């Protein structure tokens, strides 16, 4: 394998797989045929709707590249949403405290998951299935009905616009840029890929595997905290069932975006593009007034098809 080919392959990995971009174009063309899709309002709407999933997908990408999975993010976002809604209760002056709370809870739960991962050495899927269940219980113990409201600033973050673009999506773009740099241009990113791709070799090479995995869970927790705030802004109230199932959607976006579930390589740009594609598909189906049940069927079939087509690669020799 030549250095040029390796570099080329890494570039492809960083930008997401070709099938994703083919899907982007196809979906874009199909959408263009729909009257009303290309209005500035509707496009901004698509981005607004995709922001929560995009935020979760950014964090999840780090965990998956490290060869693990974080199923707790949907319920973590929900816990943050409920706590922040109760704290703010619509008061403008509480915005900063709520942002601090979201970051603290997100980072705290992520760090706890990482520590448990290092101590117990159990499969990340089963560990975070456990923490998901505990977080859901804690959220329901805190409240089993909607409470509180976002401050005007948080509502603006989710629903407002800056030069026609949703602020939440600008936040996503900023974070994608940072995450992309971290993943592909820092020592941490190299370590992360090494830990996910070949944990044994990484350990022998002196990479602090436990610390790298912990960092991945902390990043995932933080992104879930931010996603909880944005979701709160969209919903307008602290609804304790808000984030159920989001963890699986996030994993779908990450995989569609070209990150291998086996770990070792991945693309945050791909993850976010996939989240937006899913948003465009559901927006189109909404414009076509397709029932939500049929939408689910179509979404499932799109996932299966893209995954299967992406699977047929010349690299797949083993």
């Amino acid at each position: 394998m030549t250095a040029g080919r390796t570099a080329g392959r890494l570039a492809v990995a960083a930008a997401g797989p070709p099938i994703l971009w083919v899907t982007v174009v196809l979906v874009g063309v199909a959408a263009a045929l729909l009257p009303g899709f290309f209005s500035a309002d509707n496009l901004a709407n698509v981005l607004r709707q995709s922001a929560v999933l995009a935020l979760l997908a950014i964090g999840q990408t780090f965990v998956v590249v490290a060869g693990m999975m974080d199923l707790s993010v949907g319920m973590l976002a929900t816990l943050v949403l409920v706590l922040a809604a109760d704290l703010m209760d619509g008061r403008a002056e509480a915005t900063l405290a709520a942002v601090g709370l979201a970051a603290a809870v997100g980072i705290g739960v992520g760090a706890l998951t990482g520590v448990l991962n290092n101590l117990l050495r159990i499969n990340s899927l089963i560990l975070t299935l456990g923490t998901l269940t505990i977080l859901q219980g804690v959220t329901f113990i805190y409240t089993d009905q909607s409470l509180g409201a976002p401050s005007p600033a948080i509502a603006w973050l989710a629903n407002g616009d800056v030069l026609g673009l949703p602020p939440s999506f600008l936040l996503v773009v900023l974070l994608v840029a940072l995450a992309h740099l971290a993943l592909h241009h820092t020592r941490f990113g190299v370590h992360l890929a090494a830990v996910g791709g070949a944990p044994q070799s990484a350990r022998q090479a002196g990479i602090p595997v436990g610390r790298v995995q912990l960092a991945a869970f902390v990043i995932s927790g933080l992104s879930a905290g931010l996603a909880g705030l944005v979701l709160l802004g969209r919903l307008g109230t602290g609804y304790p069932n808000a984030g159920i199932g989001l963890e699986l959607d996030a994993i779908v976006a990450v995989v569609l975006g070209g990150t291998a579930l086996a770990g070792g390589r991945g693309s945050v740009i791909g993850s976010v593009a996939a989240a937006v594609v899913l948003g465009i598909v559901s927006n189109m189906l909404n414009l076509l007034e397709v029932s939500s049940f049929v939408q689910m069927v179509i979404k499932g079939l799109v996932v299966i098809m893209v995954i299967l087509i992406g699977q047929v690669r010349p690299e797949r020799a083993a």
Partner: protein
Amino acid sequence: MSRPDEIAAPTPAAAAPVGVAASRRLRSFPETLAIWLVLVVLLVVAGALSEAFLRPVYLGNIIRQAAPIGIAAVGVTFVMILGGVDLSIGATISLGAVLCAAAMNGDPANIAPAVALACLAAGAIGALNGILIAVTGVSPFILTLGTAITLYGVTQLVTGGTAHGIIAPGFREVFNVRIGGILPTLGLAFLVVAAAGATVQHVTTFGRRLYLIGSNPAAARLAGLPVRRTVILAYTLSGLLGGLGGIALLARSGVSGSLAASGYEFDVLAAVVLGGTTFEGGRGGIGGTVAGVLILFVAFNLVNVIGLNYHAQLVVKGAVIIVASAIYRRLRDAGSS
């Protein structure tokens, strides 16, 4: 260590697999014993806290409660021994329940065809999962997640999003008769399915192939084992038993909500993993899974009897999943060194 879905890469050790796999199976025996010990200890603790757990009728009732998840978990155990996973199991259970109720439509004459239809549909879904996984080598985790989303949509389409279909008179009654005044028929059905699953695992060539393929797929392929056929059969069984689990759910609850079993995939996975079958494949078995299912349901009932609500049950469930898995990990490390 955290590679739940990918088939392990060929390693230099691939050359000497059969003896290793066999000794691994022998070693897994004390593990299975350990999980049953945990169940006994839990029952003793529960019995000390509440006399209810000493009453056979109450225990029979726990087995009845566990039947839908337990029956489905038997099939998922096969898939996970193989190193795969079936996230569509909750959606399959839901679809099984909904199809069965819709086809029954309140007429006792329709019971048999309705059950057959649910089994056929669920088995076909499993077969489709298996064929796609075996032929393309796609990650089972993400493929069955896609199947799950699709099936939940289909189920909602069938029902229109509300409870749908009418149970025929006699259907629930048959399943809720207590044999000898203790064990409901539904509980017996779970135990029969588990016994059948254990027999398949221990006695048949298919059962042995599951372990060989799960512990070293590359070696199994080189040794000429029919890997594809085994994978397809395992997922078909998982789908079929998911359908039976759906029928059991219908018999237990009597209502077929369109999302009756949404989230059950996590409960099934938790039970299977508690029972000592890992995401990596090659170890575990039906015996452990049955104990895992019973531990989960005894724990739920205990929390209930103590007087904590459903929300606290979730916290306990999560803690049980984490702690039990950690204990296993220790046992396994101790056993293999």
